[in-house]
């Protein structure tokens, strides 16, 4: 690591946008790790397609965060020159790929939320966020369909695939509560009509998740204790390793382009 971290002035709008950008980048990067390694060529392409959708969303959000901040930062600096504690993504999206079931359950939990979230954000009073939402909504709708179909087949498949899917649900469940959390900085944006209150999406999210999980002959954990911290830079041990790979080129050859 030879390049210093940037500093970001996290006004409520900058922080809000950065959090969503980080979700998309980190999940997109995780999915890109499957490229060339997926269980079959068809899914290699499918996961890479989803990764590219998410990285596209991240780019637009970083661009807007940089504009809202109004300083010297740009999308590349925001992605490549912040350290772990400066990242604001959900803990869910940084969790390792694990096996195919873990990757798909993680995707399913997130996409079921993102689908509702972006559709609601199309009504944001912030025209840039509303435009990003209109583009992202179609992508997320497909990600949800893709992961739902897989959850159903993994759960209602073989003994082995059922056990792995159930294991993934049990393992990742505690990271789902963070998607619906709101802090003071977001409360102001919600009141101003710029952000939507994620708590209003919770019932519909639960309904979607429960219906797919039931069809898959799987079960949701009864445990409702939820892990949080990602939105404030308190991450699991996995994110640092991810960032060291994601950022290695820019840290070694600052400003390099091709």
């Amino acid at each position, binding site marked *: 690591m030879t390049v210093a971290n940037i500093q970001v002035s996290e006004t409520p709008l900058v922080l809000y946008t950065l959090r969503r950008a980080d979700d998309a980048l980190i999940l997109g990067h995780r999915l890109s790790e499957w490229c060339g390694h997926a*269980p*079959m*060529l*068809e*899914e290699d*392409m*499918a996961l890479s*397609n989803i990764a590219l959708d998410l990285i596209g969303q991240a780019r637009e959000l970083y661009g807007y965060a940089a504009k809202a901040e109004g300083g010297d930062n740009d999308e590349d600096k925001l992605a490549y020159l912040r350290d772990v504690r400066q990242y604001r993504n959900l803990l869910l999206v940084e969790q390792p790929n694990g096996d195919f079931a873990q990757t798909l359950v993680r995707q399913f939990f997130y996409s079921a939320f993102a689908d509702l979230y972006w559709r609601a954000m199309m009504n944001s009073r912030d025209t840039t966020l509303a435009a990003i939402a209109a583009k992202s909504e179609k992508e997320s709708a*497909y990600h949800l*369909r*893709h992961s739902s*179909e897989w959850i159903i*087949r993994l759960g209602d498949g073989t003994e082995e695939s059922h056990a792995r899917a159930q294991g993934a649900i049990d393992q990742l469940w505690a990271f789902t509560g963070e998607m619906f959390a709101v802090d003071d900085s977001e409360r102001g944006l919600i009141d101003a009509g710029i952000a939507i209150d994620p708590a209003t999406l919770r019932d519909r999210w639960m309904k979607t998740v429960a219906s797919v999980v039931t069809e898959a002959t799987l079960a949701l954990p009864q445990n409702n204790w939820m892990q949080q911290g990602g939105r404030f830079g308190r991450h699991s041990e996995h994110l640092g390793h991810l960032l060291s790979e994601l950022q290695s080129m820019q840290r070694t050859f600052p400003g390099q382009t091709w």
Partner: protein
Amino acid sequence: MATPNTPLWEVFIRSRNGLAHKHVGSLHASDATMALQAARDIYTRRGEGLSIWVVPSTAITASDPAEKGMMFEPAESKIYRHPTFYDVPEEVGHM
């Protein structure tokens, strides 16, 4: 890479301004829904199509390449079946 019990599907795409679905390739998927999703991900990434058909490869009955002579050669000598075989009189103009 695909396991032997994952069936093969043939994929047909209708392009933006095309009238008919055209065969574009094949893929492995466990069932029709998954085949349709995989077809979308593999064959329409560059905006190639507006409609997809997937058909189980086993549903196709193919002609035997060994019977090529019997099947297709008899047509080769019947050049009068092509419209270009006939001279159109000048007075007819464009048909």
